[in-house]
């Protein structure tokens, strides 16, 4: 019994961390209409920086700063934010899909760098030697995991409340105004590219926070954790949950992570051994189909945005091509 409960805590912790990431993406995509094709890079920057800043000294790669944990986590968020700021500065004034391509490129380059630069983050072996906060006092047992979950849950709620207030604030209205009609927003004297940059960086800092918590949870991060898979999963969570709706984002995170975990378990349990080799392929087809299917049949998601929506665009003008 304690086994199942302990697994549920494990599941809920991971899902909550991912939910924080989905909230960060929601600010970018749902509220501002910015396409982040490299979610995993900002998530990974948070994880790597947190572990490097907060970890003990390691032979062969950067690290061992042993910072007080909250500071290390803030460092992780800052690293993600800095990366977003640079990419945003270069792309946000251009055609919208430049951001998609550049962020996708960031993710490829980030994974590539982490895999190869041993001096920086241990290369393929990853970053080790991280002591989880309060571990000395609580040990590694169930109590620690429960407390860790409580901590993550608190941060999730805090992030949710922060974003809800942000979206309701004048800044939030400005974001939607820019998403809906950039020219009109610009005519009000607001600089759309500056506002978009702020939203993009803020969203990426939240992604970095999620990454930092993820790294903390496993006390280890390696290039395997920053594969594009994670980007697709986080997108699917947002699209299924409902872009623009923070509750939908959290709901989507739990739903998709549950489906992913369950499908992996079912394939490993019931599928013949030679099929199990293709578990990944099946799961990817599943997640691709979820994304495409939602966009085709329910683009607003399961919990749609509660505002007046004009995001659907102008079908006539699209058909006319201009």
């Amino acid at each position, binding site marked *: 019994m304690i086994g199942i409960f302990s697994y549920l805590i494990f599941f809920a912790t991971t899902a909550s961390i991912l939910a924080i990431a989905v909230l960060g993406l929601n600010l970018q*995509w749902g509220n501002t*209409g910015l*396409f982040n*094709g490299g979610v995993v890079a900002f998530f990974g920057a948070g994880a790597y920086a947190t572990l490097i800043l907060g970890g003990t000294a390691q032979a062969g790669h950067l690290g061992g700063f042993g910072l007080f944990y909250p500071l290390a986590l803030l460092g992780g968020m800052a690293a993600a934010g800095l990366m977003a700021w640079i990419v945003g500065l*270069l*792309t946000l*004034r*251009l*055609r*919208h*899909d*430049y951001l*998609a*391509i*550049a962020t*996708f*490129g*960031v993710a*490829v*380059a980030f994974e*590539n*760098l982490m*895999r*190869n630069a041993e001096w920086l983050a241990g290369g393929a072996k990853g970053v080790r030697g991280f002591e989880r906060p309060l571990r000395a006092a609580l040990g590694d047992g169930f109590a620690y995991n429960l407390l860790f979950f409580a901590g993550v849950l608190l941060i999730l709620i805090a992030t949710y409340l922060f974003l809800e207030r942000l979206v309701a604030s004048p800044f939030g209205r400005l974001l939607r105004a820019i998403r809906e009609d950039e020219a009109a927003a610009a005519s009000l004297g607001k600089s759309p590219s500056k506002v978009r940059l702020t939203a993009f960086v803020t969203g990426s800092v939240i992604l970095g926070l999620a990454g930092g918590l993820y790294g903390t949870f496993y006390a280890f991060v390696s290039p395997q954790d920053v594969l*594009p898979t994670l980007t*697709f999963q986080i*997108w699917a969570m947002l*699209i299924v949950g409902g872009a623009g709706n923070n509750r939908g984002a959290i709901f989507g995170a739990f739903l998709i992570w549950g489906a992913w975990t369950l499908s992996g378990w079912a394939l490993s349990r019931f599928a013949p051994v030679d099929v199990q*080799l*293709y578990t*990944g*392929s*099946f799961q*990817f*087809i599943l*997640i*691709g*189909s*979820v*994304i*495409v299917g939602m*966009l*085709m049949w329910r*683009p607003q998601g399961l919990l749609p945005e509660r505002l007046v929506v004009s*995001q*659907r*665009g102008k*079908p006539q003008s*699209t*058909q*006319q*091509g*201009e």
Partner: protein
Amino acid sequence: MIQHLLDGVLTGSYLSLGAIGLTLVMHILRFANFSHAELLSLGAYAALVCDALVSGLAPFLTVKLAPLSLTGALIIAILISMVLTGLSALIIDRLVFKRVRERGQELSMVFASFGMALIIRNVIGLIFGLSPTLYSRDIAFAVILSRDPLILVKPDQVFVLIAALALMFILHLILSRTTFGYSLRAVAENPSLAQVNGVNLQRTIMAVWLIGGGLAAVAGVFYGISHQLIPVMGRDLVLPIFAATIVGGIGSVYGAVLGGFIVGVAANMALVVLPSGYTPSVPFLLILLVLMIRPHGLFGEARA
């Protein structure tokens, strides 16, 4: 050094072919199609199947065209694959992209294209297995062009380069000499004015998918000849192809050709200064560089 340059030009030949279709789709349908690289995989594997079929039906075609390792059967297979891949691109647009286009905003298409990329890539993996294959099991011997410095080139690679250049030249003739080509360029520049001048937009979009898919198929086969066939090849090609379109300027066919060669050469020349593990990052660095110094690429125009 010269070897890297040569390899870069050879890499550029298939990147360019891939980038041409992508740049047209990005310009005319206004979305970054992340599933375009999967059309290369689709074309490569379609040619593999067609090659086996043609070889079975007409064994006399399995003789190698010395000094190439290519057979007549493979060349016929490439032509069939071009048609099949072009049609697949058209069908994918009809079934998926067209519907998303009508329901959502432009960036929903980008999401959808990622989803399609995942589906296509992994379905290919399921059908053909996850391990690499080759068109020909025979070892193709490289010809030594020079001993000092050592420069090697495989006859197949030379064929790839010449065939790619020939295809690009044919495309150039179509774009610069035929009214069909003018109508493609007209739609790229101003879709509603093209309609005013009697161009059928839907039919032009279909033509763009057919051409883009056909060239992607050739690019995929050429990648397979130069390296190997592997279901995840699209994943490794998507960023270089995007880099080629951005370097050349989105919407410019000539830019895509030049961009492809620039990306290919840069990725290979980078080996001189960087360990080979970093090669996948080179296209990204090129994208950053272009965005910093010339955001609309070599031949692109500003367009919101």
